[in-house]
């Protein structure tokens, strides 16, 4: 069986007043089914642009070159009409701020049903059942009632659960999560990470998890891609990146993170 996602030599270019600028340069990675790839980097590293290029969601004017293949099929250069059929069906994405991804005027049930019916058709009644099941799957209590709630009636962590339910309603093979827990409190973050890991395991989908937080990556990813200023710095198994990093930048990042379990007063002096 081929790899689920193959990205080769991906370059993303933005036109600017001073000429074209590459925000992602020659990035290559593969993601197998049942795998979680963590993409980690600081701000401006190009980690979000890489994932948007995979989804075909780059901002207007940006150009992507190279190759992005989902299950052997090239996605770069495909018309948006075809990509729209894939998004939400075979590949889905969730973002940092669920509130800005949800329409405040519609119940969450309607929004999940809309995704389902756009891809699978069927009656409204069936779609509603699917939406309730999807909310149940992400651990929202009382989904029969919550399906008729509006986004503002949920807490931040619950809204992220709703987004995950919407992303998974068509059982995609690929889920890209861009900083999905960054805006959440640590206790809620732990719950969402557990939920994503469990759902990925049950469904056998591939997960790309983007974050600036190395500790989060360590807890969820099997493979890690470290990016810096649009370039791929290191790409290896999680164990290798954390236990035997090859690059100075990765080492510097690992040295920068404060450890909660280290002895106090470890001689941090100026």
């Amino acid at each position: 069986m081929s790899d689920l996602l193959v990205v080769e030599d991906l370059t993303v270019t933005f036109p600017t007043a001073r000429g074209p600028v590459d925000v992602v340069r020659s990035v290559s990675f593969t993601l197998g089914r049942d795998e979680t790839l963590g993409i980690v980097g600081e701000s401006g590293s190009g980690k979000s642009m890489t994932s948007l290029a995979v989804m075909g969601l780059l901002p207007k004017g940006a150009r992507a070159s190279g190759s992005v293949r989902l299950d052997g099929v090239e996605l770069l250069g495909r018309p948006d009409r075809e990509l729209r059929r894939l998004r939400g069906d075979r590949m889905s994405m969730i973002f940092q701020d669920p509130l800005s991804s949800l329409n405040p005027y519609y119940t969450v049930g309607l929004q999940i049903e809309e995704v389902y019916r756009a891809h699978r058709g069927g009656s409204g009644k069936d779609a509603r059942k699917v939406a309730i099941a999807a909310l149940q799957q992400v651990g929202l209590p009382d989904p029969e009632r919550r399906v008729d709630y509006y986004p503002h009636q949920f807490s931040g962590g619950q809204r992220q659960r709703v987004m995950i339910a919407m992303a998974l309603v068509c059982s995609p093979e690929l889920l890209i999560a861009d900083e999905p827990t960054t805006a959440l409190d640590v206790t809620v973050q732990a719950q969402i990470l557990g939920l994503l890991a469990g759902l990925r395991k049950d469904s056998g989908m591939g997960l790309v998890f983007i974050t600036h937080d190395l500790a989060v990556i360590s807890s969820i990813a099997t493979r890690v891609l470290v990016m810096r200023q649009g370039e791929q710095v290191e790409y290896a198994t999680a164990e290798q990146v954390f236990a035997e990093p090859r690059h100075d930048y990765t080492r510097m990042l690992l040295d920068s993170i404060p450890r909660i379990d280290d002895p106090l007063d470890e001689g941090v002096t100026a």
Partner: protein
Amino acid sequence: MTLLRATGLTKRFAARGPLGVKAEFTAVDRVSFDVGPGETLAVVGESGSGKSTTARMIAKLMDPTEGSLEFDGEDVTRAKGAALARFRAGVQVVFQDPFSSLNPRHTVERILTAPLVYQGIAPNGSRRAHAKELMERVGLNPDHSLRYPAQFSGGQAQRIGIARALAVNPKLVICDEAVSALDVSVQAQVIELLRRLQRESGFSFVFIAHDLAVVRQIAHRVAVMSKGRIVELGDTAQVFGDPRDEYTRTLLAAVPRINPEWDRRRRERVQA
């Protein structure tokens, strides 16, 4: 000796209950603590815990509904006029987002000398020399004193915010999530800077943050807040090493950690 003492600080906001019945929401509920000279007290908690409201009350950006605040031996709870001006000269705030707290149309020199103007203090030497000296103290190139905030990176802009807080030689600096928005490598440098400045100048910090690992690096004592109350207050070593409160334990357990086995192997290799 105590520099700042908060006693029973409470903040209630008007809210609307079911059926439009008037209700009150207690954001901060009888919070008491004190901060000694040269000490760093961290206030940690999740969103909605009341930590930022507490910060605003001790910075006198918001009046408490109940309770009192003493600074440098003086009751400042209802301070106005000259007493409030004295308080402002002694207490400065560093905010989370440097770009929204620095005027984009002012040069760094103007930003750094503004606190002196408000306080009516004459700088040592010229304004320009004063700004350059402050820039040097926070690790910025003093030749850039006529640049605008947008010409700096996030970490550099936060250094400007810190320099502005130090302009009047405060006795207390309140940092409200001052390093939360920074990348990890930059964050480590700014924490380092804050520690050095405190060693050099001996001011106190109240450090408001949600990131427990960061707090542990900088605080002498820690207050853990939940639902408007302090659930635990103690020395950093005790709160992190031997937490007494159930909520503190839950919070510490939830902090993501790098796989300890991998981390140990890497560090052994570094040492070898």
